């Protein structure tokens, strides 16, 4: 097992390198000049020339990349062009926010999506199945930004139950932190819950037809036990994969949701950074996100092994 994990970590290194090269080159393909954005309305030519030199924008691309890579190996992700703050500091500010939003949305999605999926598979063709499908379809079709603005207008403006937007760290004020994150996690979570529900349903339907389920029933096990121990556990494997991918995507930030609820997470930062051509920030966030994605997929693979003893033989 340890060797398996070590192997996976080693494979991650070239993957990360490729990702960083890819993002670096893509950014340079974008039209637009970061220094012009940086120079602002007054565009002092001397300052422009100095900044170009300081940020090594006159060097060949390959050198620019190597400089960046060497800095990264020393633990320095560079300086944000826009705010002048170190990228590591910005990431340290945003990572907990993004993690909190991702975890809360995943919890919401899992709590709603998986039970709804199981129920609609077990009670296929009944009212509950149709209801769950209807809700899931709505969750998938309602755009995040619309749902977000509607929730703000209803819950914050009209009812005054929750703050309209903003963020508070759980270490400073846990109650307010939960309150500010509740609406965004519901907005993000509904679409995820819908996807999870659809997949759980189809996975469960497949498993419920399997021979071992029939055998379990034939043994005279109670239906609850059949579903929980035999069917659900086996149906869970594809759901774990899906959840890992979803969670990984959440780590890249949820652009629209963060924008609407003004949550200072990765999504908002990376969009601002792209618009300002703040190369160092984009590179840094992508590197951290890619690392997170790889890590979570590794955890998902480990979870397979724990869930399914047959997998142990293959590693």
């Amino acid at each position, binding site marked *: 097992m340890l060797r398996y994990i070590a192997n996976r970590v080693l494979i991650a290194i070239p993957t990360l390198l490729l990702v960083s090269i890819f993002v670096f080159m893509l950014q340079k393909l*974008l*039209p*637009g*000049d*970061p220094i*012009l*954005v*940086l*120079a*602002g*309305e*007054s*565009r*002092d*030519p*001397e*300052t422009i020339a*100095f*900044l170009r030199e*300081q940020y090594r924008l006159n060097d060949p691309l390959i050198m620019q990349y190597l400089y960046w890579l060497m800095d990264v190996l020393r633990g320095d992700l560079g300086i944000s062009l*826009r*705010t*002048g*703050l170190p990228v590591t500091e*910005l990431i340290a*500010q*945003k990572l907990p926010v993004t993690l909190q939003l991702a975890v809360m949305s995943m919890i919401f999605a899992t709590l709603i999506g998986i039970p709804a999926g199981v129920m609609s598979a077990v009670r296929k063709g009944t009212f509950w199945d149709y209801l769950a499908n209807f809700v899931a379809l709505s969750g998938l079709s309602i755009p995040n930004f619309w749902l977000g*603005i509607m929730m*703000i*207008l209803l819950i*914050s*403006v009209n009812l*005054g139950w929750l*703050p*309209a*937007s*903003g*963020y508070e760290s759980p270490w400073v004020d846990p109650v307010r932190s939960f309150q500010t994150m509740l609406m965004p996690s519901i907005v993000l979570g509904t679409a995820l819950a819908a996807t999870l529900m659809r997949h759980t349903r189809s996975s469960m339907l497949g498993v419920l037809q399997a021979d071992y389920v029939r055998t379990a029933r034939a043994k005279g096990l109670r239906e609850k036990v059949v579903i929980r121990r035999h069917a659900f556990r086996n149906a869970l494997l594809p759901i774990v994969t899906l959840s890992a991918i979803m969670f990984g995507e959440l780590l890249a930030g949820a652009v629209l949701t963060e*924008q*609407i*609820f*003004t*949550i*200072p997470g990765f999504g*908002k*930062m990376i969009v*601002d950074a792209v*618009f*300002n*051509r703040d190369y160092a920030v984009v590179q840094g966030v992508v590197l951290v996100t890619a690392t997170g994605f790889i890590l979570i997929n590794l955890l998902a693979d480990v979870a397979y092994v724990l869930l399914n003893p047959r997998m142990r033989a293959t590693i």
Partner: protein
Amino acid sequence: MRITTLMTTLLSTVALGSMAAAADLRIGLNEDPDSLDPAQSRTFVSSLVYESLCDRLFNTNIDMEIIPELATDWSWSEDGLTLTINLREGVTHHDGTAFNAETAARVLDRNMNMPTSNRRAELSSIDTAEATGEHELTLTLNGPDVTLLAQLAHHAGRMYSPDAAEAAGDRFGAAPVCTGPYSFAQRVEGDRIVLEKFADYWEADEYHYDRVIYQPIPDTTVRLANVRSGDLDMIERTAPSDVPSIRDDARLQLFEVANIGYQGITINIGNGPRSEGPLGSDARVRQALSLSIDREALNQVVFEGQYVVGNQWAAPGTTWYDESDPVPARDVERARELLAEAGVETPLRIEMQTGNAPVAMQQGQVIQAMAADAGFEITLRATEFATLLSENVQGNFDMSQQGWSGRIDPDANISAFVGSDGANNDQHYRNEEVDALLAQARAEPDPEARKALYDQTRAILKEELPLIYLYHIKYFYTLRDGIDGFEPYADGIIRLRGVSG
């Protein structure tokens, strides 16, 4: 007895709660400011935060006239080459060091010499800044410059602790130390900037909040929802489309003021091959385009009629507006004649670069439809901001939407855009006569004589039209009910002096 105690406790808790809330002022901003180092800042929005954080040598009153702030009075030498400024006594920086002529001179030095400073062009007329007394600052100029006071009433004149700046170097903007009514407490990028009341401020009694919290919320709908729900006390730059509903809402107050900047179209006159078509090479074609646009209709359709139509960099009715050149009415007939005189085959195909925000694109579509009646076939290219900037600089445009946030000194609203060496002259308009008039105006201390010089440039520019001015935006502020003492200023900067509630 017990019930009374309970009631008292409850009431005092409620009272304490509302007191705590009243001591914080939460202001929603349209975007997140850039670096908070006054030497480096380059955005309008940073001025809003600075106004509570860093005093300036000069400020402006509500009529946009220059008034002393950290200066008390000033005098020019006969030849206009020496400016002597007396400074306010008893002022302290947030780090406890005293503010005096020596620190002010060091701040100006840093603004003029730091390689990453964005203030160098603004202060380029200063040769030396010296402390000639404990509170007397003397600036020696390399040539007469009547715009200097206005520069010292902007970013370049914001005073900070030179000791703190030296210690922090390039990172000073992360935790600035200034002289304003509030000191820097915390910044979470993209989320909030928190300032705390500075007890030793020279006018501390005039500031009534313990903390001021600036929160960037780019979405106008969400920003407004936050005032409606009571999560914010005040927001700036409310969307014109929301104005009617705010007027009807008893819980909100609306303030508006016409901005000193302008919005218009830049036309490529001499920047590369794309300037060689009829639009760039024949002024009559540009005049035709200007005449084909109904500015008031544009204002009604896109901005609910809330903005001010215009045809010059100064808005109609303001000090620097040239009354002899009023806003032209739409005249499609004349536009067609002009195109015929120019020998242009219609429809004339041209491309207009616009921003990619919905309002910018809508504006482009309205202009496209109006110009079509006169014989222009405009294609629109919606471009994201960073790309638009570099396309403009490289001359890869026929015409391009342009806006300027405005400065109190007229020179800054025109020279950079039509002067031959202007940093923002992307259309590469070159006219020696205009250059000479602008240089003369820059050195002319008498406002009336100066205005006459700017009017002379109008006479040329309205014929040649390197820039077609269309309208002037208004700043709308929405405040929750109960806040008193707020007044909107044409420069858009929020002043908290005397604001309470």
